[in-house]
């Protein structure tokens, strides 16, 4: 693993102060959408790093929900409201569950992986929807977050939560970028291309998939905690397959080319959703579906490929790009 920062990482580091400044410049509702989409964006990132290995998780909502509910349960029954403690608890819960489920899921590829990840997320959906102590399908509310004993109120509290969300999200994105550049990241791409050859070359594809699955789960759970804290509410819809489908949708729309793509894609989608719902509430899914079809047909590598190809025109092609046939 190289120590130096690549362009993406510099970009992420630069984005942090910019995002924080935005809270003083933009109206509160826009900042709120940024905050919410950073939370769900992390889940899309989880989907995206699995997609790098050719695995499409149609049940990433499972870990989104585990993160949110861990934070909620810890707040409700243990009285914990410290955001950092809740984040750690959410991460631990998701890592343990993902580690155990990983032994089952790592044996599957393609459609079977999609179906089985969907099945386990729907098990949790059924479980939570029928648990009346946890509000069934209505869910329940979360406490106001505190930070190492500091409990800011009102506007200050919201700003602090926003800043912490930005820091955590960009920090995790940076870490994930390192994962993609690590041997594991390259093994994943090789698995997508040809798993059998990876095995012949002496690496365990099962092990790589398992590790990737756990990492994706941890990131998604962090997104769940942040999202739940931002909204102050959790419900079983977080792990319904339609929610998971939207995470997959974002990854497809944005493309898997860059770690920032899913985060930006989530925000764009959130904005489209706001306007679509305002203009005609019953056609929002239709707009979503049409966008998705158009992306798949005309931009099979996602919106990010537009940026990537614009760059390529100015720079001399690299060997890897020639190999891709561009």
């Amino acid at each position, binding site marked *: 693993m190289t120590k130096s920062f690549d362009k993406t990482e510099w970009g992420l580091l630069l984005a942090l102060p910019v995002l924080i400044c935005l809270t003083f410049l933009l109206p509160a509702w826009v900042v709120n959408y940024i905050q919410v989409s950073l939370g769900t964006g992390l889940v899309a990132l989880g989907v995206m790093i699995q997609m790098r290995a050719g695995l499409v998780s149609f049940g990433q909502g499972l870990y989104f929900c585990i993160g949110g509910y861990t934070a909620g349960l810890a707040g409700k029954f243990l009285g914990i409201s410290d955001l950092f403690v809740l984040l750690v608890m959410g991460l631990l819960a998701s890592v343990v569950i993902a580690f155990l489920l990983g032994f089952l899921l790592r044996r599957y590829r393609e*459609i079977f992986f999609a*179906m*089985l990840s*969907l*099945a386990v997320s729907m098990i949790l959906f*059924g479980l939570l*929807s*029928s648990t009346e102590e946890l509000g069934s399908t209505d869910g329940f509310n979360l406490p106001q977050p505190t930070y190492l004993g500091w409990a800011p109120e009102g506007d200050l509290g919201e700003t602090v939560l926003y800043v912490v969300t930005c820091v955590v999200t960009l920090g995790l994105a940076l870490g994930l970028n390192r994962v993609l550049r690590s041997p594991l990241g390259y093994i994943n791409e090789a698995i997508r291309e040809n798993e059998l050859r990876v095995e012949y070359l002496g690496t365990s594809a099962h092990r790589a998939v398992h590790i990737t699955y756990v990492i994706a789960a941890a990131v998604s759970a962090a997104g769940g905690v942040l999202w739940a804290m931002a909204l102050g509410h959790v419900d079983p819809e977080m792990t319904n397959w339609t929610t998971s489908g939207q995470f997959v*949708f974002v990854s497809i729309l944005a493309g898997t080319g860059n770690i920032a793509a899913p985060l930006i894609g989530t925000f764009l989608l959130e904005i489209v959703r706001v306007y679509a719902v305002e203009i005609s509430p019953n056609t929002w899914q239709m707009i979503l579906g049409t966008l998705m079809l158009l992306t798949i047909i005309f931009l099979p590598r996602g919106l990010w490929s537009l940026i990537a190809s614009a760059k390529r025109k100015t720079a001399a092609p690299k060997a890897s790009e020639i190999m891709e046939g561009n």
Partner: protein
Amino acid sequence: MLTAVAIAVDGLGFAAWLFLSSVGLTLVYGVMRILNIAHGGFYALGAYTSAWAIGLYTQTGSTIALTYLIIPLAALAAGLVSGLLVERGILRFMYGRDEVLMVLVTYAIFLVLEDATKLIWGTDSYVSYQPAYWLGTIDVFGLPYTVYKFLIVGVAILVGAALYFALNHTRTGKLLLVVIEDREVSSALGINVTLFFTVTFVIGATLGALGGALTAPEISVVPGIGAEIIVMAFAVIVIGGMGSIGGAMLGALIVGFSRAAFVHLYPPAELFSIYLVMAAVLTVKPYGLFALSESRKI
């Protein structure tokens, strides 16, 4: 004893409903290798068309008997129109793409169909109970059941038998089996694969619509029924082995009876019992009970 009877009859009812709703899905997957999420949309379209048509018809005050004709006609209309539109309009440009990508394409189509349904019929619920009660009830060991429930069981058996016969004992069906075996070779042998695809997809869509149309009198038709049925149909066909019609039947029976057992013995677990069964079966048989064997390509 009563519980056992209730589990048996309800299980059979669930199984018939699940088979009708998922057999089109497995047929389309078997022939075209497309895991069609939009199947849930066809189901919803069928349910709405049938509930709406029955509602219009019963307002005229004519005999209820004819509604049993309206149900299959509604399914046929919904399946033909939407199936042809989706296959000719979108899917045919996508053939040969990656299987997982096709899941996403059909997911996008599903989203469009969901809103199309809302645009046509609004977001209110549709109730068309008349056909379900007109036939009266029948006592099974002291428990009253609507005759309509057994009618659905009959239709499910009929559909299963018809598909089995059509596939194994007609020329077209045998050609279709060849297409399933190897698309390229059958194309080289002069079989019109594109036509087979279109016809299969429309039949699959119509079967999905039929599942919805037959269920409509028993439920209140509301937005979201498509999303609900599609995950159950997935469970059914994944358990049985995707692409196998016998598998879908077995999967429907397993899921139907286990769901009925949970409903009567431990109701809170009803919702997730289906997926629990699916996960359990897949742990033992990773590709379903009747999976088609496939060679590993290097």
